[in-house]
């Protein structure tokens, strides 16, 4: 039986953002933009969606005089990611 895939994570960019944040305690917006290759506008929209779902935490701060946006994964985000990987495994196991 296939487990349902979380629709919020089942998107290329949102999954890439969460995967990046899994291995980092926190990451700045420009770093995520560079690593995912997304445009600032699109990335901003996807980050807002993840933040609204409680999967990530967004902190607007300053680095010297420059504004800086920090993103962190939340425990809810971590759990959702684990569930997503489990569900993904069920699909891959059937295929193999």
């Amino acid at each position, binding site marked *: 039986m296939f487990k349902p895939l979380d629709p919020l994570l089942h*998107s290329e960019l949102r999954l890439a953002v969460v995967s990046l944040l*899994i*291995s980092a305690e926190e*990451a700045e917006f420009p770093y995520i933009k560079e*690593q*995912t290759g997304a445009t600032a506008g699109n990335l901003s929209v996807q980050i807002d969606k993840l933040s609204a779902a409680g999967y990530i935490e967004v902190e607007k701060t300053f680095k010297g005089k420059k504004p800086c946006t920090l993103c962190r994964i939340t425990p809810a985000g971590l759990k959702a990611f684990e569930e997503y990987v489990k569900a993904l495994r069920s699909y*891959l196991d059937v295929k193999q």
Partner: protein
Amino acid sequence: MTAERSLEIITEQIERSRRTITENSSIALISWGTCVFVFALLIAYLWKCHGGPAWNALWAVMWLVGCLAERLITKRKEPVPVTFVGKTIGHVWATFGIFMGAIGIIFGLAGSGLLPVTFTISGDPLNAHLYVNLTSIISLCFGIASTITGFILKNRIVQVCGFIAGLGGFFCALQYPWSEQLYVMAAVAVIGLIIPGLVIYFQKQK
């Protein structure tokens, strides 16, 4: 999006993050290694030609120069995420720095007579002495910190270089008189920090 593609995205992003951390560590290894190398040779020269071991106080200047260089490099670089691996490596080297700094200061103060302590062994009070080879100890700890960094980064080159630098430096320093031990320290910096740093850096550029 297929399950395979999802898995590919996850693997790719985690791998990218790991690569960034490794690359970032290589720059820190090169900059600190260069600092130790330059200051070891400079202090060796000054000690031999312009006075005595008092020039060892320049190690404090090296620490300042190293911190400044690291700050400048970090400012110019692309932002790097805060990760558990990066923090752990930082803690390993900070621990090394604190211990070596404290030992250096205590020996420096005792040697200059500012600290009323004599490090002697009990026994014949006329010949009681304790020979502590600071370069050997520092080289060994250097090698240990470098090898641990190699294990954290899962990088065989850093592990091997750390091992050679630590043990090689420990035994070599025992063979040479004081001022010449600084050449051993310079070699330890090259083998334990600069070479692994350069290897990692150029591996990641490919």
